[in-house]
């Protein structure tokens, strides 16, 4: 099976020669990262001040912006590494191990956190252990790694099934995928109580399956099943039920002590008070302790307060363009594995953006999930950089639409065209 996949690659390689990657991907990303740095620069001092007041720490005004800059630099390194040095072929070869490592890390976290309660290296809240603590460096979220493992593994696995036309096979495709998802759900949703990440994982798998060509009937069944499962998950967990009730009952009168209601109300106050143009950089008041998680999960609300409707539409526009671009690259990838990788990355980033923004605007119940590239925090930033790096790497192997349709064997200059318009072969291509 793997042999066959490898042959496909070489076949595609023969057809599509490596060419200049897609730099627009970087432009959109860069704009978002810069906006993220600006907002963290603006509210960092308030955040530091607040932590100092509450916890008696002594963080400087520049603490958060320096940390975020560090994260961005590390993320840039990761992007470059995965764009140019770690070849996707090579990564795929080890995808099984990566997935196992993801499971392993999650199991270790559960062991140290939930079973032995080693507080020195795990960070738990209300019985949910989501982070490893690496003294002196920061925290690490194994679920991010697990998502990455699933993404890579399924890209190889589903590509092989595509090639063999067994994508709708119950035993060869559906059950293994469901099994992987079940194990992930056990770690992420049950042990770590992190429904947001669980949903993101499902979105990754769903968009890969969709692109892989799952039959609409099976897709509809799976969707229905997930809805039922989702309802059950919500009903059995009190904290989720509470959030659901908050969501359904509306929150206008939320002087409620309930944390979820308070959180959403304040997110909406931040966004709503921003108006058309926003209060301006450095004028966010909600970041001064009113809005929980202002710097990480709720950063979208602070962006709304600061930059207003126009700013948010611009930011969403950037995400939209970025996601469209990933889909466009995907469409032009002849190699199924690349194609599925791009699909998974689309699901990853898209689900994070939508789940986060929908929660902040009160369209969906609250789940703790970061806003890619904008939220404060290194783990999320680095993994987004890694997967974008891989898509960037893949964008060197796109083929022109006409080639894809015709499946021409002979090589001409058109095979060196990238996504979009025709270019002259000699110009700046490798």
């Amino acid at each position, binding site marked *: 099976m793997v042999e066959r996949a490898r042959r496909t690659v070489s*076949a*595609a390689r023969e*057809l599509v020669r490596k060419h200049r990657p897609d730099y627009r991907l970087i432009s959109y990303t860069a704009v978002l990262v810069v906006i993220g740095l600006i907002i963290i620069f603006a509210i960092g001092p*308030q955040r530091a*001040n*607040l932590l100092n*007041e*509450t*916890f*008696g*720490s*002594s963080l400087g005004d520049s603490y958060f912006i320096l940390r975020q800059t560090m994260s961005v630099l590390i993320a840039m390194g990761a992007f470059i590494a995965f764009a140019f040095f770690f070849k996707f072929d090579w990564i795929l070869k080890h995808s099984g191990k990566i997935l196992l490592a993801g499971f392993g890390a999650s199991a270790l976290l559960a062991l140290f956190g939930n079973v032995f309660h080693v507080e020195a290296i795990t960070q738990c809240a209300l019985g949910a252990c989501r982070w490893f603590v690496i003294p002196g460096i920061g925290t690490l979220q194994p679920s991010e790694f697990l998502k990455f493992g699933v993404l890579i593994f399924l890209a190889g696995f589903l590509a092989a099934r*595509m090639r063999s036309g067994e994508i709708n096979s119950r035993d060869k495709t559906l059950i293994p995928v469901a099994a992987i998802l079940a194990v992930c759900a056990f770690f992420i949703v049950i042990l770590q109580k992190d429904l947001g990440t669980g949903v993101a994982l499902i979105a990754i798998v769903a*968009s890969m399956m*969709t*692109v892989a*060509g799952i039959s609409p009937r099976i897709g509809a069944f799976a969707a229905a099943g997930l809805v039922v499962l989702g309802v059950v998950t919500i009903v059995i967990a009190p904290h989720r039920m509470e959030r659901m009730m908050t969501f359904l009952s509306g929150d206008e009168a939320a002087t409620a002590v309930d944390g979820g209601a308070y959180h959403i*109300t304040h997110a*909406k*106050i*931040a*966004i*709503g*008070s*921003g*108006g*058309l143009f926003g209060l301006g950089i450095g*004028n966010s*008041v*909600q970041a*001064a*302790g*009113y809005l929980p998680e202002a710097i990480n999960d709720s950063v979208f609300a602070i962006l*709304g307060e600061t930059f*207003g*409707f126009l700013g*948010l*539409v611009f930011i*969403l526009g950037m995400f*939209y363009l970025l*996601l*469209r671009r990933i*889909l466009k690259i*995907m*469409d032009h990838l*002849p190699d*199924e594995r690349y*194609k599925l990788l791009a699909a998974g990355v*689309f699901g990853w980033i898209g689900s994070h953006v*939508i789940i986060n*923004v*929908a929660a902040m*605007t*009160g*369209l969906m119940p609250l789940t703790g999930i970061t806003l890619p590239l904008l939220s404060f925090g290194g783990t999320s930033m680095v993994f987004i950089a890694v997967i974008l790096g891989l898509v960037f790497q893949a964008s060197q192997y796109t*083929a022109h*639409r006409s080639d*894809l*349709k015709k*499946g021409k064997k002979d090589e001409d200059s058109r095979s060196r065209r990238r996504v979009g318009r025709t270019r002259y072969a000699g110009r700046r291509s490798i």
Partner: protein
Amino acid sequence: MKLDLLKGSRSQFLVILLTGVMILIVVRLFWLQIVQHDHYTALANREQMKHLVIPANRGMIYALDGTTPAPLVMNQQVYTVFADPTVVTKHQEVEQVVREVAAGEMVDGDIQEMLQDTSTQYKVLARNVSLRQAELIREKKLSGVGFQQVSKRVYTEGQLASQTLGFVNNENKGQYGVEERLNDRLTGTDGVLKSVTDVANVPLSIGKNNIRQDPVDGESLVLTLDLNIQSKAEQVLAAGLERSGATDGSIMVMDPNTGQIKAMASLPTYKPEEFTKVQDAKQFVNRTVSEPYEPGSVLKTFTVATGIDMGVITPDATFYNTDSVRIEDRTIGNVVKGLTGNISMQTALNNSLNTGMVNIAQRLGNGEYITKGARDTMYEYFHNRFGLGELTGIQVTNEQRGTVISPDEAEGNAVRYSNMAFGQGLNVTMVQVCAGFSSIINGGTYHSPSVIAGTYEDGQIRKEDNATHRKGVISTEASQQTREMIYKARNGFTSDDKPGYYVGGKTGTAQTIENGQYVMNQTDGTYLGFGGTKSESKYVIMVQVSGKGMNLEGNRHAMPIFTDLSNWLLEYYQLQPGE
């Protein structure tokens, strides 16, 4: 090899899904940010805009050290250490650190239990912690531990003049004394800061609608009390009580030429700093203004002054003494018996003969009866001119009026006025007596008593005088003659005064009234007198001692206290002795 991969691609489906959700979100944002903008701005303001009070500093209170103001009550910035149990993580460490640094200031109770109580976000761990201590605790960077600055009254002289000062309670309100009476002036006006704040109510500099109104600090007051005299007065009073075994005593020193009070105190007293520990609220009371009583024979000086000023007696005028006199159905007797026959008014005063005083009252009438006219005259002098039974307006709280019954009332009959002639049948305060007595010996000018010399501004006293000054309450000659009679009355008793000075005084021993009945075997001792040179009296001192079930006498128990203080004052004022 065919590459018809697009066949299975569902990217259009994903694009439509993505676009649809994005449009939904943008519509939602339009609703929140454009349509509902005012609503959310109002919500934000309601939560973020705070009216913060900038507390005004309470005015300080100074006393005089000679003529220089010396601070008696100051403010100190201290800190309240509190914990937010919902944030605290290291419970043991929090307690340990606070105990190490400020064990003495810690609140009572189980700290660990308090830290576990997550139903509140504010648990006080220690009060009145100094800045240094607060910093030591802050350095430990304990999560969930906070500090609150509060102003605390500090008393430089401990319990000195505590009843005159009063104290400031936990609601920052003055209680008793000057603190209560002049609370408004001392408090000042708090400033207001209307500002956007962070969640911990710390004002943020952002926002356009911030309004700041600076506080106006309270006035600093300078008392007329002289630190040295006050201190000495309390000392001699305490010593006198010890000698006599009396449980209660009051003392007042007044400048007869201005009405300014130089010292006033009652024992037992309290430390204002520890006002919460006082068991008996009586200790807070400034009895010299708040506790009217029958001063007894010391008021004979008032009767004599009235008689002389009305021209019905002279010091040498005589009357026929029979040791007792009958007024309607009552017989009034003397304590000192046997001085029968024709004796002078001076002798009557020297020996404190009640019959002599009744005789003066009779002379104010038709010579035989204390007529309505006599009573009107006595009321005019005692009440209207000398201010007995009337509020003096002294600037401490809870001044009592006392009772001097007017002859127009049924109670104001001849029997009562015969009693009033020797200081009974009326209720007056020491401050009233001192002020009236001052006018009798200072040439006839009544100065309403005062305890405030002025305000302290920029290192200087800005004097204020709200006192009333009534000249000619008695004639200068009458004053001079009465003063000499009082001088003689004292010097017939004692020769303990420093030679070369002019010190006069009168004893008083009065039965006490409890529940409207005179109590047997319980008397108050009072002494009222003046001192200085022959040409001018420099001070008036009044001393009163009492005790439950005790017979305390003016001459034996109150007078020595007067003498101690008087001799000290002569030296303190550095008066030149005459021959």
